[in-house]
């Protein structure tokens, strides 16, 4: 372990502060899913992935991460900055004119750490598969990670990719699902039910593991375990239960905070629940 679980939890707390402050500052963006994935991103970038903040697009010899549900950009930006890809002061520019921190992640403005634009849903899994297959061709034994939203699985392209990866033994790929059961118009159960995701992925030929995405110990163990499953002929799916808005009581467990910014009072309430463990940007 590079960090103790407590240290990782402290980083995640700061990441959550960044998220609510960023979204509050521009009065737009998506706090709910960002907060729900703060622990996952922290575990990935501070503990699990072998990566360099000296950014190169091809990332040869490094583990790569792709964010498919690009609207949770605040958590991505915070973790990239906190791990050293760019200065944390730049987080203050989120969603503002001339910023590299666009509403949804993009390579277009040259922000280190971003390798593909995402936002229009359903495309990240395919991109991650391509990157994983390039690694195989390059005899690069690193791992490719991708995060997808659960509601995003309603996009058909995902299922093309989900079918393709096992057939082609893309076993250097670890996909995680942000399984919070919420989407813009309400619970996924009501909007368009995902039914039994584990059974669906297994039927397509994936090795599925489960984790609690808001329990640092669980998520770290799951990602380390997933890594041991690579190279065995199957892509790996980490079905990760999360709560939208995790860490801020009034945002938790509801789709209502998917894409709404807190006001001044709500920001103060949220920050009071999130200890500042590193310096605020």
């Amino acid at each position: 372990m590079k960090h103790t679980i407590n240290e990782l939890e402290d980083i995640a707390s700061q990441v959550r502060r960044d998220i609510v402050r960023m979204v509050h500052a521009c009065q737009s963006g998506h706090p709910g899913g960002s907060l729900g994935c703060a622990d996952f991103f922290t575990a990935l970038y501070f503990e699990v992935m072998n990566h360099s903040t000296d950014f190169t697009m091809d990332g040869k010899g490094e583990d790569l991460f792709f964010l498919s549900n690009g609207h949770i950009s605040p958590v991505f930006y915070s973790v990239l900055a906190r791990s050293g890809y760019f200065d944390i002061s730049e987080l203050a520019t989120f969603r503002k004119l001339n910023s590299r921190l666009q509403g949804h992640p993009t390579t277009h403005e040259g922000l280190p750490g971003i390798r593909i634009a995402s936002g229009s849903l359903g495309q990240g899994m395919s991109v991650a598969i391509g990157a994983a297959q390039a690694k195989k061709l390059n005899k690069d034994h690193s791992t490719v990670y991708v995060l997808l939203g659960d509601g995003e699985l309603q996009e058909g392209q995902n299922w093309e990719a989900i079918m393709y990866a096992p057939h082609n033994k893309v076993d250097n790929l670890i996909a995680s699902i942000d399984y919070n059961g919420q989407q813009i118009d309400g619970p996924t159960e009501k909007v368009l039910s995902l039914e039994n995701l584990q059974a669906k992925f297994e039927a397509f030929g994936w090795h599925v593991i489960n984790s609690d995405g808001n329990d640092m110990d669980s998520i770290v163990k799951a990602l380390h375990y997933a890594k041991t499953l690579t190279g065995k002929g199957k892509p790996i799916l980490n079905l990760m239960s999360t709560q939208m808005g995790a860490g801020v009581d009034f945002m938790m467990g509801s789709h209502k905070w998917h894409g709404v910014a807190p006001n001044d009072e709500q920001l103060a309430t949220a920050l009071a629940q999130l200890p500042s463990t590193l310096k605020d940007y």
Partner: protein
Amino acid sequence: MKKYTYTEKKDTRSGFGAGLLEAGKKNPEVVALCADLVGSLKMDAFIKEFPERFFQIGIAEANMIGIAAGLTIGGKIPFTGTFANFSTGRVYDQIRQSVAYSDKNVKICASHAGLTLGEDGATHQILEDIGLMKMLPGMTVINPCDYNQTKAATIAIAEHHGPVYLRFGRPVIPVFTDPDQKFEIGKAWMVNEGTDVTIIATGHMVWKAIEAGEKLAEMGIDAEIINIHTIKPLDEEAVLKSVKKTGCVVTCEEHNKFGGLGESVARLLSTELPTPQEFVAVNDSFGESGTPDQLMTKYGLDSINIIEAAQKVIKRAKK
């Protein structure tokens, strides 16, 4: 009129297949992807030579574009292959976000473009693809005119960094360009110098423009014929230089008159050198089943249509 002859007819998609093999030999980073149309795209030779560098995607074009974008991140130069309709309209958002906006070095190679796909009918005959692709910032759009030019273009785009849309067709047509030509992206080819009218043609319409030029010469009209194989970026200098001389222009393309080469030329001329122009293109219509020749006649894409357009535009220019 300069004399053009041919000894054989070949399909431009075979030019693509030959070019892909050669590009693959030149650069080990070149890889190919196909959505269940290997035979139609003439990818067999590449697959035989480089089986480990070929990805059979199945009938899943959106996934193909995404995988291609991902492959570039590891330094690969992916060539995707399927019909033009499934290469563009079907996957527009995937190309827009994962390729063009992300500045990925993907070569989108599209066969069976336009009416000359023939009997399969309008579901497969895309006439909007040039427009769709040229509207994407940073996208290079190329529509070569015969086997040799398609082969040369395929080799050239592997050496060009950035997303490219390469459009070619199904039927056999005359092979009349130099087999050893150097293909320069964005550089027009002067097919015939003339003084009375500029005929600008792309793709399958270039040979028809040559046929028209010969007939026009018999009528005493000296046509300048320019092959624009790269629709974007357009060789503006070549177009302006010619039109300054002739004072009128006919554009010819196997595409809807909306959004194609003709509109690119019109946009240029309207700001730089307003000039009478006629469009030989499909008149905002879908295609239908039929042989390629029948369809080109029915939809007004024959050499006679170019001749009539030239006569008309010359008259307009004289007014």
